């Protein structure tokens, strides 16, 4: 079937495809590499023409400067604490709810769709009343002021994700455990949860990344180093018309690194997480 000419044509086409894919990969990587270079280079060389990717004077000065700036490294800690707390809470609430909904004979689907529909609401519609209410309770610029809205936003996501995992488990296992006298709660903890550990971890990582990256709510709720999150601190490296490119890039690297590492771990669960379980992947 394949003639000599056809083979050459295929070779040319494959080479073309490889080139296009490589160009796109370069487009993905170039901004990131550039950031690494700027984080390390001295201020005078930020915008040399022609550009210097990696300066010969590279040093860690910008990383040192971060600590004297706004909340400094505290912002990363704030983000971490808030993300861990809100993730744990929404995982507990959401997983229990998902199991209940997955096993309930009547109306389980209706409630599930109700949870899913929360996703359509634009976050900005939530952030204004949440800001006013949290100011009313006096929780502006506190961890709990951030954690509450994050729980509210992420619980529906956890419910929908975990429900998908629970529906995949054959109920026969649970039924036999229940005829042995186990109640629902012990079935959930002893039989079901051990089966969905990968799903739990992946969902938790997704929620954590969402909160770590979240900007809008953080912008409204936080004010000082008491609660300012990393995402909200990043813009403050621009002072009027002057931008501290080195410090900003260094801080960007610190923000991106944990997420990139986590992302590699949950590669396999990506499709499912991104589509709220609509596509199994």
């Amino acid at each position: 079937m394949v003639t000599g000419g056809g083979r050459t044509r295929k070779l040319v086409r494959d080479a073309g495809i490889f080139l296009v894919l490589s160009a796109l990969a370069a487009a993905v990587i170039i901004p990131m590499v550039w950031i690494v270079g700027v984080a390390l280079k001295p201020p005078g060389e930020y915008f040399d023409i022609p550009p210097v990717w990696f300066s010969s004077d590279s040093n860690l000065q910008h990383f040192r400067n971060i600590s004297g700036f706004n909340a400094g490294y505290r912002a990363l800690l704030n983000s971490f604490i808030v993300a861990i707390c809100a993730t744990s809470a929404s995982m507990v609430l959401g997983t229990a709810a998902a199991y209940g909904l997955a096993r309930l004979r009547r109306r389980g689907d209706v409630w599930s769709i109700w949870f899913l529909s929360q996703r359509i609401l634009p976050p900005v519609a939530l952030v204004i009343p949440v800001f006013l209410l949290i100011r009313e309770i006096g929780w502006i610029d506190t961890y709990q002021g951030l954690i509450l809205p994050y729980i509210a936003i992420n619980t529906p996501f956890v419910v929908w994700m975990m429900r998908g995992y629970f529906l995949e488990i054959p109920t026969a296992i649970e039924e036999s455990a229940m005829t042995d006298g186990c109640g629902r709660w012990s079935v959930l903890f002893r039989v079901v949860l051990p089966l969905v550990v990968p799903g739990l971890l992946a969902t938790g990582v997704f929620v954590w990344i969402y909160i770590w990256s979240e900007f809008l709510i953080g912008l409204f709720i936080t004010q000082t180093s008491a609660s300012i999150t990393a995402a909200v601190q990043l813009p403050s490296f621009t002072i009027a018309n002057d931008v501290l490119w080195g410090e900003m890039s260094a801080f960007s690297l610190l923000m991106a690194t944990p997420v990139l590492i986590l992302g590699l771990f949950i590669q396999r669960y990506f499709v499912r997480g991104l589509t709220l379980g609509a596509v199994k992947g």
Partner: protein
Amino acid sequence: MRLIGKSHSGPVGAGPGGTATVSLRRRLWPRRREPGVEQRDTRDLRLMFLPAVLVVLGFGIFPLIYALWVSFHLWEPFIPDHPGNGVKNYTEVLNDPIFRSAAARTAIFVAIVVPAQMVIGLGLALVVESRMRLQRLFFPIYLLPMLIAPIVVGYMWLQMFQFPAGIVNEIVSFLVPGDARVNWLGSAETAFITLIIVEIWQWTPFVFVIMLAGLTAVPVQLREAAAVDGARWWVTFRTVILPAITPVLTVVVILRLLESANFFPTVFSITQGGPGTSTYSMVFYITKLAQFGRPGVAAATAFIFLLALAIPIGFVLMGILKRQTAEKKRI
């Protein structure tokens, strides 16, 4: 309500004489039978999802209702109380030229970005799908942009678009002869283009990853049958592959529509809505109103935005869900 009432029904013989005299509570919520294993099980299951429902109601739905209330009241910085304001907040917004331009910008943005992401993402997925070696090489790289926080991506690209020395300008001046460097953030149109480029850069991987999974799930036999028939690639794609991936395609389009309409961190970091107010997005506009101490008007705008988004997409979603349940029943 019925749901909460049921969950209150206590275990057998909860109190002394519980069955002898009919308590008021029992009369209000009559118990048909003694709670057997099944009832207790249903009660446990309901107890499991009740907390989550309450949390979402309390911190998600209640604020939304409160926002609706706020949107009909006057809420200005130096006025201590908040008298009713009728629909004035709404009419003020609808007559604001900045609102109109922000709404138009957002609509145009979505109309450009979503199709572009779909075409590039699906195209890449089609190319890579049957070439495992390339897929293993490039997949982890293409994954990266959507992992990074949008605000970080925004400032990263702000560096790329610097004038005259940013990397984008280096590439432009390398490709185009003469002094072709562009002051990207200097004019409304080029500033808007930077936002479009960044959004495509960050979220095309999302389309790619999911469409790749969707394509992989198309049974090989289907495609082989078409290939044996000697169908051309385009015909195979249109008649075999496209119908098979339509459900996945719909999900991706909906998610992209929702998220790109909410674009905000890039505007905040790259253009600051400028030059002037030319690149205000809806969310940026609402945020500005709120930050200038006008939550009433901001809430009104947010509701207009919510309705414009949720009504069409809600209809599409309901359609999908109905079709899915119909299919389940048929099987």
